[in-house]
């Protein structure tokens, strides 16, 4: 699951350490962070309901990326159609994963370790299905998302792609927030995040609720997957990048959605500022050092509930 996470656009990231570069790196960092946020929020949502780390989450991202690539290449559909298909496909794959691998386990036992191991297995399965079916090589998405440079009122230059991914992430996260706060199912999900059993006793259809949560998480991961495959090209191990979304979720506080968003933005900024001002090779090291420091200083993260053992 190892991947070279360095950006092919690293030439653009280097430059004179000036104010323009700073602004540019901040925009790039927010853009990257917002893509992490899409992934981290879905992961955090599943964690808040079932209390296990779904390591297959990166697989949903890859499924979304490949559906988008496949439909663009074979059927020549537009980006909107392909994007919608990718979202639906990844969402359904997530629901299917839950039905096949997680539901039989959680119906039998409440040991989350078994779910964790099954999710690790699913992550390996999904990655290697794509290795066998699509081959391990790197694929570039057709130029459906504009990447031309954009000048921001003469202050800094950034690419249209960065602005677009930032805007899309904000739109999707806003939609999620509306769904969670304004709809009946959103209310049920918030109740289940507080206590799944009690929510079930209050008449919530728990199995349907979990399916909805997995669909939402899979669809959000697919959005992230499409943007990441434009940024880094598409390959079966692209899902490994979810490690950074996990890190972001821990920095923000496991199971907290605002925490996942804030953690992702911090991570994206740290990564891009390191790439811009220190060295491109140090960015992954900075990410993992931030994880270790967070766990040492405040293990529950910025917004996490205290989960320390109390007896």
């Amino acid at each position, binding site marked *: 699951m190892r991947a070279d996470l360095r950006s092919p656009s690293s030439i653009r990231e280097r430059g004179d350490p000036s104010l323009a570069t700073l602004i540019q790196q901040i925009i790039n960092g927010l853009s990257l962070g917002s893509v992490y946020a899409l992934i981290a929020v879905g992961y955090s949502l599943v*964690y808040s309901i079932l*209390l296990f*780390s779904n390591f297959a989450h990166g697989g949903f991202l890859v499924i979304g990326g490949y559906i988008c690539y496949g439909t663009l290449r074979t059927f020549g559909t537009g980006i909107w159609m392909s994007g919608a298909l990718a979202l639906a496909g990844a969402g359904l794959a997530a629901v299917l994963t839950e039905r096949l691998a997680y539901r039989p386990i959680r119906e039998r*036992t409440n040991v989350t370790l078994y779910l964790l191991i099954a999710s*690790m297995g*699913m992550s390996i399965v999904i990655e290697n299905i794509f290795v066998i079916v699509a081959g391990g090589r790197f694929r570039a998405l057709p130029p459906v998302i504009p990447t031309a440079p954009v000048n921001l009122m003469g202050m800094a230059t950034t690419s249209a792609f960065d602005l677009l991914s930032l805007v899309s992430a904000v739109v999707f996260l806003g939609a999620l927030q509306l769904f969670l706060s304004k709809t009946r199912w959103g209310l049920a999900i918030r109740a289940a995040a507080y206590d799944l059993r009690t929510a079930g006793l209050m008449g919530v259809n728990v199995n349907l609720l979990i399916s909805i949560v997995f669909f939402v998480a899979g669809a959000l991961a697919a959005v992230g997957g499409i943007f990441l495959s434009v940024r880094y090209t598409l390959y079966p191990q692209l899902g490994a990048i979810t490690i950074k979304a996990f890190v972001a979720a821990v920095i923000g506080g496991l199971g907290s959605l605002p925490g996942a968003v804030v953690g992702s933005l911090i991570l994206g900024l740290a990564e891009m500022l390191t790439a811009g001002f220190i060295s491109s090779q140090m960015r992954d090291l900075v990410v993992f050092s931030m994880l270790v420091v967070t766990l040492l200083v405040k293990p529950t993260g910025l917004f996490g509930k205290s989960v320390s053992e109390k007896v």
Partner: protein
Amino acid sequence: MSGYTEGILILLCINAIAAMGVSLLTGFTGIFSLGHAAYMALGAYTTAILTVQHDIHWLPAILLGGVVAVAVAYFIGVPTLKLMGDYYAIASIGLGEAIRLILENWQSVTRGARGYPGIDPYTTLPVALAFFVVLAVFMFNLINSRFGRACKACRDDHIASSLLGFHTARIRVLSLMISAFYCGVAGALLGGFLSFIQPVMFDMLKSTELTAVVVFGGLGSMSGSLLGTAVITLVTELFRPISQYRMLIYGAVLVIIMVLRPEGIMGNREFLSWVKAPFRRRA
């Protein structure tokens, strides 16, 4: 004995040592790790640097490799294992990646991504076997000792066990440190077996493999972990020609075991009751 057979036997001993370490942590204490290859890397690099650059004899170097792994495990374990939930699992991914990146970028000490050549081939079959036997006897004693039972109690119900007076956080950290020592020694032996180590050898795939072996053999069964190691090491050798399907089958087997038989091949029973019998008197 041909060189090939001997090589497989040495590899089997090394994998079994690492598997025993992970088994104590995952199978007996219920903590999931996705970064144990990092402890192997620490052991391997420490031993390589000590033997090649400082001319220290390989035996103390291997033990020091294990000690370095233990020190890092303590540093990571104390803050994360106080918390319930998947904090250690995620910290272990971070640790694994961070250590691999440090090894790749710290050119002056580790010689970077191209690897560390010229390690003395000290891991002969007798050496590997001796390490395996000593560590196995210690481990089988350990899991039937007071500490081993405390680990199982923490795994099964951490609230009940802390009500019984066990310091659950301390037991979890200690369990992690012992498992890190086993992996450190296994890594050090691997370095001596191959005479060459590379950061890529200790990536997340290796960590996953370590845990998969333990799950396959049966969580909570030390002999199951050894059986799992033997099966997976030999199957890996047999299926080398169709290696692209190997990982797919691997993942599918993990899921299927969790769905159909989460207790693994052996469940939590031990296979070699005749080995266990002499130690049972003390229980």
